[in-house]
């Protein structure tokens, strides 16, 4: 969208069948579906995580290196955290992509904001995955 001022902008009639102008893929459909499927999984993963970490058995006060080592000794919690990391990060990245698409006015701004977003996301996923897989309880 360029921001050329128009005196009478044409408003397309509601429910006009959408005409495909570019691309023949259903990426946006899959992104829409992913938000719902990952969202449902994240309700369990994230709310479970918040309950355990913040509320049960003393909450955040009991968390330290030893606590993390105890949890990641179990493959169950490793898989839980890995799934949560990937799903939450991709879910959040797609959410921010939507917001950038909605509010940016210039193509350049939109492009660079998305590049920054994708770079940050890739780094977070890579770092988090590396930490879960290479965690060493006897690091010292």
């Amino acid at each position: 969208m360029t921001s050329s001022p128009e005196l009478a902008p044409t408003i397309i009639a509601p429910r006009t069948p959408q005409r495909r102008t570019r691309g023949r893929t259903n990426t946006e459909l899959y992104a829409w579906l992913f938000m719902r499927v990952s969202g449902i999984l994240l309700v369990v993963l994230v709310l479970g995580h918040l309950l355990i970490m913040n509320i049960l058995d003393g909450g955040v006060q009991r968390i330290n290196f030893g606590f993390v080592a105890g949890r990641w000794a179990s493959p169950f919690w490793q898989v839980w955290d890995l799934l949560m990391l990937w799903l939450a990060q991709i879910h959040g990245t797609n959410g921010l992509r939507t917001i950038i698409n909605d509010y940016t006015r210039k193509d350049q701004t939109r492009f660079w904001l998305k590049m920054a977003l994708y770079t940050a996301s890739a780094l977070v996923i890579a770092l988090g995955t590396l930490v879960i897989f290479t965690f060493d309880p006897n690091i010292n």
Partner: protein
Amino acid sequence: MSTTATSRAPAKTKFGGTLYRGREGMWSWVAHRITGVLTFFFLFAHVLDTALVRVSPESYDTVIATYKNPFVNLMEIGLVGAVLYHALNGLRIVAVDFWSRGPRLQRQMLWLIVAVWVLVMVPGAFFMFKHSFEVLFGSK
């Protein structure tokens, strides 16, 4: 145009007729965006602080001590509240999209999730802040 939209007389206000007033549906959407962005930025910081387990137990314990501070603890309650709203409203969106009666019941479902939110947050905030309260006001 549906008949339900015209059955109610338009509200008289000093604004013109073009201001969109989406009521509960609009505001729940606004809150969904805000809580989503907030959670995204927290996730970024949280993966970085957790990654310190790969550096040394001491550096991890130092950064986790920040979370145990009563003021940060208060912000954590805010974060849990934001995530809980985003989760519950996300389930409502899934119901609107996939359940045949969803769109008609969207407003009732919003008040339902608000009620669930309050019911979970009252005991949740109590247990999350219990230790900080004791630190601030004496008994520990």
